């Protein structure tokens, strides 16, 4: 299990009584939860439960009622650059449709830190570290548009890492990844939490959530149905209530990455 940070440190993310209304439709109702540094928190729920809406609200991309604090500071009190220094967001799919090189796209993650006096070699090293961490260093000069969906997803994760933010929000990051890169991503996320980061990740695969996350929030139609340790949230009663599924105890073949 990941090391926990000292208790004096404020919560990485604190969401209290958040309501979001989109075109007269209530997308989130009274959502309250906390996420600490050093943990991976899964956001679970069926389609339309409000998972992406929750992530976008936490990024300040949607208007909300209630309170959201990042590292003990109210989100609304932070400028856009300050938010980007604290929070990084990996969307389900990027709207980028211009033929920029992978290195340039990852470099966009440094925007909030850059000043006219920024040292170029230092910026370059940060970008190279993000490329290496996501195993796409060899794609650096390729056009983003020429990549497969899975490769594009890794570029977006690298861009988020390049921001240097301590809170990472990922919206279904494994959706287009092959099993090897999906496992590598979870290993990377675990390493990041061991370095003190907070990861909040929207997942559809409950087995992935059980295997790789510490805590979970289960949403249904904008309401929090259950939250706590992942093993307690993904339990018979809440899963039956939200998804209408029965638990299965069939043994199944599992795979893991070889030890480095």
């Amino acid at each position, binding site marked *: 299990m990941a090391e926990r940070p000292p208790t004096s440190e404020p919560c990485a993310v604190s969401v209290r009584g958040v309501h979001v209304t989109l075109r007269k439709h209530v997308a989130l109702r009274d959502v309250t939860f906390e996420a600490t540094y050093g943990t991976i928190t899964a956001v679970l729920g069926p389609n339309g439960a409000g998972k992406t809406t929750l992530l976008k609200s936490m990024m300040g*991309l949607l208007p909300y009622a209630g309170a959201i604090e990042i590292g003990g500071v109210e989100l609304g009190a932070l400028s*856009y650059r300050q938010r980007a220094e604290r929070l990084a967001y990996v969307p389900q799919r990027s*709207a980028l449709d*211009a*033929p920029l090189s992978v290195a340039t796209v990852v470099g*966009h993650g440094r925007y909030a830190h850059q000043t006219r006096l920024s040292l170029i070699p230092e910026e370059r090293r940060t970008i190279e570290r993000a490329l290496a961490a996501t195993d796409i260093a060899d794609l650096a000069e390729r056009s983003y548009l020429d990549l497969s969906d899975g490769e594009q997803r890794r570029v977006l994760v690298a861009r988020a890492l390049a921001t240097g933010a301590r809170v990472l929000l990922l919206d279904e990051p494994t959706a287009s990844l092959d099993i090897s890169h999906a496992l590598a991503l979870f290993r990377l996320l675990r390493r990041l939490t061991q370095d003190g980061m907070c990861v909040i990740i929207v997942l559809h695969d409950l087995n992935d959530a059980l295997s790789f996350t510490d805590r979970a929030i289960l949403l249904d139609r904008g309401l929090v149905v259950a939250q706590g340790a992942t093993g307690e949230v993904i339990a018979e009663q809440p899963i039956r209530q939200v998804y209408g599924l029965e638990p299965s105890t069939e043994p199944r073949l599992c795979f893991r990455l070889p030890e480095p």
Partner: protein
Amino acid sequence: MSQRTLRIPLAFGALFVLSVAAFIAGLLIGQGDLGDPRLRDTLLDLRLSRAAVAYLAGAAHAVGGVLVQGFFRNPLASPSILGTTAGASLGGQLAIMVFNLFLASTLAGYIVPEMFLSVGCMVGAAASLILLMAIVGRRRDLIFLLLTGFILSSLFLSVGSFLFALAQDSWELSRAVVAFSFGGVAGSGPRQVAFALPLVVSGVVVASLLSKRLDLLLSGEDEAQSLGVNVDDVRFMCILWTSVLTAGAVSVGGNVAFVGLVVPHALRPIVGVEHRFLVPASALAGGCFLVLCDIVSRLPQHEIPLGVVTGLVGAPVFLLLLVRARRRGTYG
């Protein structure tokens, strides 16, 4: 050195050489005999001013095109297609009428007419862009954007025609409105250069400073904002400085279409989509393009309006882009 890092300095070198060549051609080609010593100095002065105004107007149209294309994330957007140029033109017509009817007698000693014209063009361009953004909002529907621009353009041109009809009571006023509406750089002098220069130079400098933010906007407003860009600020700056650039161009060169569309489109395959290269390259190439179009416009015995030449080049390019966008649905 990679192919890309070599291509960009070469492209800028070529654009500098082309700029000098276009200016020299602008001085040498045209009606009148340069061999006549009595006419030579006057002809050279006139042609130099004309080439300078064409260069500034072309640079302004092209960089204005880059700004709106960057903001709307659409290579088919340009000030002329979105109605911004027509808005600036209408603002200019209104300014001429207001100045001549109400202010000329009282403020003639205090306000230079060209200054009032530039302000009118700027207000017209800004109003048209604000109206367009209010209608289009965050939608990326290409057809909706283009149709809205077309409708606004038609509306502004119709109101302009109405103003012209009103102005016919006064011969002097109608002459001024017609001369401005037809546009062109034929009668340009150092005064026009002096008025356009600060507007265009400041517009190009600010557009260059916006480069990084426009690059991030290529990923959409949500992603740009999540990376630290204040999208509302960028929107305001794009409206303001596209208006300044369009006003600078229209107030000295009239309503010239398609430059802001053709030039950035031609440059993207060479310098790429990053705005730190695209903005200055567009300024240089836009200047060359309009100087060359102006030379073509004065080749026949009777001069052709500048907008006709740019339209003959721009319309086919626009159609080509539209067909390609329909087929591929990608940027650039």
